[in-house]
């Protein structure tokens, strides 16, 4: 049964319990003790050591100030750019339909890093391997929910079966629309709404443009369009072959 997250940003209070729980459970190093100046966000982005990241978008309208908060995470895409790019087979799809990097296989080639359209996975500098959210693969095997969802005090992060999460999310959007929050919509909940990734196992409810939360508006798994490049390679190959043949034939004449 596919497992995933539904992250409802409208009830996130920016407490960062998810970030802390993730670090603690997965024994991840700190992000460096510095002050970013970006509202209350000091972890800045997802990375090799940061598998949950709470972003703080400051909104200043005429009358009032408000925050948009979003706990970002690996999306566990149906078409995962990292998995398709991985040359060693280190990145696999698990029995929970999640995307997992096997640390004993990864050789740190770095191809997944540029293949992720969300900028999730990164190579750990000292360790040399690529790391990202495992959707708490170890906890799932013991029928436990992931650490971040467990720690979330407002149920902004809901863990469960993707099909059920989609139903919950749709109901939540309808509820918000009834209450007048007409800008609420789902990001990446299905293959129809996000064909480039064919849907995300970890999707979001947003109330502003994706760019505002640093999410790409139309992400695509790179391998979906690489066919055009292979076709160009075929043309280039024929060209090189023709030039080589032409050069040799003309040199042969020159010799004779």
């Amino acid at each position, binding site marked *: 049964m596919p497992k995933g997250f539904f992250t409802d940003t409208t009830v996130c209070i920016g407490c960062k319990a998810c970030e802390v729980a993730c670090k603690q459970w997965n024994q991840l190093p700190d992000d460096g003790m510095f002050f970013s100046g970006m509202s209350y966000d000091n972890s800045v982005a997802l990375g090799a050591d940061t598998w949950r990241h709470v972003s703080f978008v400051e909104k200043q309208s005429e009358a009032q100030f408000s925050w948009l908060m979003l706990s970002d995470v690996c999306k566990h895409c149906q078409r995962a750019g990292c998995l398709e*790019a991985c040359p060693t087979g*280190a990145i696999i799809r698990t029995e929970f339909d999640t995307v997992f990097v096997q640390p004993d296989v990864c050789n740190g080639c770095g191809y997944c890093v540029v293949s992720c359209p969300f900028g999730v996975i990164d190579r750990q500098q000292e360790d040399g391997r690529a790391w990202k959210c495992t959707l708490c693969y170890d906890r799932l095997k013991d029928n436990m929910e992931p650490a971040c969802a467990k720690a979330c005090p407002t149920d902004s992060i809901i863990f469960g079966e993707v099909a059920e999460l989609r139903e919950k999310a749709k109901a939540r959007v309808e509820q918000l629309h009834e209450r007048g929050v007409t800008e609420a919509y789902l990001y990446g909940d299905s293959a129809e709404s996000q064909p480039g990734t064919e849907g995300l196992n970890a999707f979001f409810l947003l109330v502003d443009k994706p760019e505002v939360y640093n999410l790409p508006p139309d992400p695509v798994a790179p391998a979906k369009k690489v066919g055009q490049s292979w076709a*160009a390679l075929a043309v280039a190959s024929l060209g090189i072959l023709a030039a080589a043949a032409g050069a040799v034939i003309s040199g042969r004449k020159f010799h004779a």
Partner: protein
Amino acid sequence: MTDPTYYDKPVIKPPVWIWSVPAYFYAGGVGGAAMVLAFAAQILAESRLREFEERCRWIGAVGGGIGTAFLIHDLGRKERFLLMLRVFRPTSPMSVGSWVLAAATPLSAGSALLTFAHGAFLRWAGQAAGIASGILGLPLATYTAVLISNTAVPVWQQSRRILPLLFGASSMAGLASILDLMKLRDHERHVSRYFGTVGRVAELVAGAVMEREVAQVPRVARSLNEGVAGALWTAAKVATASSLVISLLPNQSRGKRIAAGVLGTVGALCLRFAVFQAGRASSQDPRATFHQQRAGLNP
């Protein structure tokens, strides 16, 4: 706020690759082109280019060998380099390319050693290896372009239809430039000049097409026009054009050939580093990603 970003932070991660990766693009490309030229000589020259053929096979083997070392040097876990051959994954140009490189390099060396050996069987094996490495040399000269096109990096995605042609042409020009630096006989020089002229002209044309492709999204074009990448890109064009002009001057002296060879090598190297650096710059600009996707040019 019509064009928002999140504190101007990048959406995607910049490449973690170091200098040795674009250096490999050059070395592997030159090696691949050499294997193809040797193959053409093997099939078509009626053994009038034996030494030239052998020379090209060695260039192929050395290019592939140095390139392999460059790639291993970049790995986060160097001792695990053999895991590149753990699976074959057609969706990953890096997996396809690893297999091509791992097969073509020893085949090229083997054919150089055996083609003119004593003994019919050894010669036959050498010729078979020559044919195989010649065919594998074609993707070896070009696949790195597919590899970088197959990423989320805006400038590489935007140029995915022209990059393989650009890299292929640059590989040809790079090989001819290496041959320019060597002492060749008259008819060998003729072959090299023919091959190099096609490569240098094609490199300049493909470069102009690439500029047009990326210009479709001004924010993406910026990464190729500005900063270090822009300077390298201009240097590549100037060096390649100069080497083309010098190589076509009448009365080819040794000095002119060396000048063309040095400029052509500089041009081919600058081109790979320019494309690489443009990718790094464009990955750090969130608006490059946003604008490209909003323009509907992504899929």
